[in-house]
C-alpha cells in the first residue's frame, strides 16, 4: 500500500471502529453525566461536568439491597459454577479422548447432541424437577448442573487432548503410571491453555446469564447483577437514569477486564472451535 493509501485505510477503518464502539463509550459517558443532561445532549460523549454521584445513587440498589450484595451473588455463582464446569469437563474430556470403554462412542454422540440441543426444550421440566428438589430461590439450580460437564468445554478440551502425542501416555504407563496418574501428571499440565479458555467463556456466560436467575430467584437479596439491572426498569426506580447507566457500566467492567488480560486465549478459543463469545 502507498503511504496515502495507508492513511486513507486507517482513517476509514478507524472511523468505523469508533462507530461500532460508540454505543459502549456513550453508555460509559452517560454514567458520568447529571440526570438532566443525559438525554438533552445524547450524541455527546463529553459531560459538561463529571458527575460521580450516579455511582453512589445506583450502588444503593433497591429496598435496602445494595449492588454490593448483587455483585457478591454474581461472583459466588460465577466462580463456583466455573470451577465445577472446568474440572468436570476436563475429566470427561480425558475419559472420552484417552480411555477405551464400552459405550464410549455412544456417550460422545450424546455429548454432541446435547451441545446442539436448544436449552428451551428442557427449561420447563428442569424447573419442575428443581422445584421438587426444593431448590427454588436458591443458587443450586444455577450452580449444580455445571458440575456435570459442559458439552462445549468437553469438546474443546478433547480437541486439545488429541494434539498430545499418545507416546507420552505410553511412556508414563511403562513407568508405572495409572490412567489417573497420566491424567494428573501428563495431560493436565499440557491442557492448561484449554482450561483457561474454558474458564474465561464459562465466566462470560455465567456472568451474562439472565433467564436462569429470572426463573429461579425471586428474592431481590439473592439476585445477581444481571437480574438486578432489570429492577431499574421496573416501577418506582424508573427515571434514575444516571444510576442505571452507572451500574450497567460497572456490570460490564469484569467482562472487559478479563478480555484485555486473556485476549490471546479468547481469540484462539474462538478461532479453533467457533465458540460464540
Amino acid at each position, binding site marked *: 500500500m502507498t503511504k496515502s493509501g495507508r492513511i486513507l485505510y486507517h482513517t476509514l477503518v478507524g472511523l468505523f471502529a469508533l462507530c461500532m464502539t460508540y454505543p459502549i463509550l456513550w453508555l460509559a459517558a452517560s454514567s458520568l453525566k447529571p440526570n438532566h443532561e443525559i438525554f438533552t445532549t445524547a450524541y455527546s460523549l463529553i459531560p459538561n461536568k463529571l458527575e460521580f454521584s450516579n455511582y453512589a445513587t445506583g450502588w444503593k440498589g433497591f429496598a435496602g439491597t445494595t449492588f454490593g450484595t448483587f455483585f457478591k451473588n454474581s461472583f459466588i455463582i460465577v466462580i463456583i459454577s466455573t470451577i465445577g464446569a472446568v474440572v468436570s469437563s476436563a475429566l470427561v474430556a480425558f475419559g*472420552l479422548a484417552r480411555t477405551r*470403554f464400552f459405550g464410549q462412542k455412544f456417550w460422545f454422540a450424546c455429548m454432541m447432541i446435547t451441545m446442539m440441543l436448544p436449552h428451551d426444550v*428442557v427449561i420447563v421440566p428442569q424447573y419442575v424437577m428443581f422445584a421438587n428438589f426444593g431448590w427454588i430461590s436458591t443458587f443450586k439450580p444455577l450452580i449444580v448442573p455445571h458440575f456435570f*460437564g459442559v458439552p462445549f468445554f468437553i469438546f474443546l478440551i478433547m480437541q486439545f487432548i488429541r494434539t498430545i502425542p499418545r507416546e507420552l501416555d505410553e511412556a508414563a504407563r511403562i513407568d508405572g503410571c*495409572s*490412567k489417573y496418574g497420566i491424567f494428573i501428571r501428563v495431560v493436565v499440565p499440557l491442557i492448561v491453555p484449554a482450561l483457561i479458555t474454558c474458564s474465561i467463556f464459562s465466566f462470560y456466560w455465567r456472568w451474562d446469564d439472565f433467564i436462569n436467575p429470572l426463573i429461579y430467584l425471586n428474592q431481590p437479596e439473592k439476585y445477581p447483577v*444481571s437480574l438486578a439491572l432489570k429492577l431499574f426498569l421496573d416501577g418506582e426506580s424508573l427515571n434514575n437514569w444516571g444510576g442505571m447507566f452507572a451500574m450497567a457500566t460497572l456490570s460490564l467492567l469484569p467482562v472487559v477486564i478479563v*478480555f484485555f488480560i486473556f485476549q490471546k486465549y479468547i481469540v484462539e478459543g474462538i478461532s479453533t472451535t467457533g465458540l460464540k463469545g
Partner: protein
Amino acid sequence: MMNRLRENEHITGYVFSAPFVLGFLIFTLYPILSSLYYSFTNYNLMEAPSWLGLGNYERMFTEDDKIGKSFQVTFTYVFASVPLRLIFALFVAMILNTATKAVGLYRSAFYLPSLIGGSVAVAIMWQQIFGDQGLVNSALSLFGIESSTSWIGNPSTALWTLIALSVWQFGSSMIIFLAGLKNIPKDYYEAASVDGANAVHRFFKITLPLLSPIILFNLTLQTISAFLTFTPAYIISRGEGGPLDQTLLYSLYLYRKAFSHFEMGYASALAWVMLVIVGVLTLLIFRSSTRWVHYESKGD
C-alpha cells in the same frame, strides 16, 4: 492379564466420564422425556398433569392467535440478522486481513460488542439509544432530521432495533473468518492475478469457496442461537414482547406461557415445535451445503 487390563480400562473410562453420563441422564434425558410427556397434558404446577392427547398441539394451530405473530417475528429476526451478521463479519474480516500492525487493535474494537452484547447492560443501553430522546434521534437531529418517536415503541421499527443489536455483534464470526482467511495460501491469489482475474473474480472463485466450510459452521450455529434469543427481547419490551407483539420472539413467548401463565403443558408443546423447526432448519442447511460447500480434499 490383557483381559484384566481391558476390564480396568472400562471402569476407568466410566469413572472419568461419570459426571457427563450422570448429568446427561438427570439434566438432559429425563427432562427431555418429561417435556414430551408434559406436552400432551394440561399442567399448571399446582395439580398433577392431566392427559390432553394432542390438545396442546391442536390449540397451537387453531386457537392461539399469538403464535402466528411470534413465528413471523422470529423468522424475520433469524433470516434478517444471521445473513446480515455473517456478511458484515466477512466484509470486515477481509478488510482487516490486509492490514499490518494495527489489526490487533481493530480486532479488539470490533470484537467488544460481541463480547458484551448478550448482557442485560447492553440490552438496557440499546433500549436507551433507540428511545425517543436517545442517541439515535439525537444524532439524527445533528443532520437536521428531527425524529421524536421512540424506535423501540414504534411497531414498525421495534424488531429492527433487535436485528441491529444482533448484527452489531458480528465480532466473533469476524474472528473465525479472519483465522480462515489467514489459511488461504497467498499464491492462489497471485496465480489468479497473473491469469487476469480481477478482485471480484478472486473473491468468488477463491475466497468464498475456500471459506465455505467455515461459513457453513457459522451459519448453522448462529441460526440455532438466533432462534433462542431471549434476553434483549425481554429487556427491550419489558417482558411483554410489545409493541403489538412485534418483539415477541419465540423464546419470549414460551417463557411467558410457562412462567407468567403457568401453562407448563402448553409451553412444553411450544418447545417441541421449536425443536422440530430448529432440527429441520439445520438439516436443510446441511442438505443444501453439498451444493455450495467446497472441501479441499475433494480436489480441484
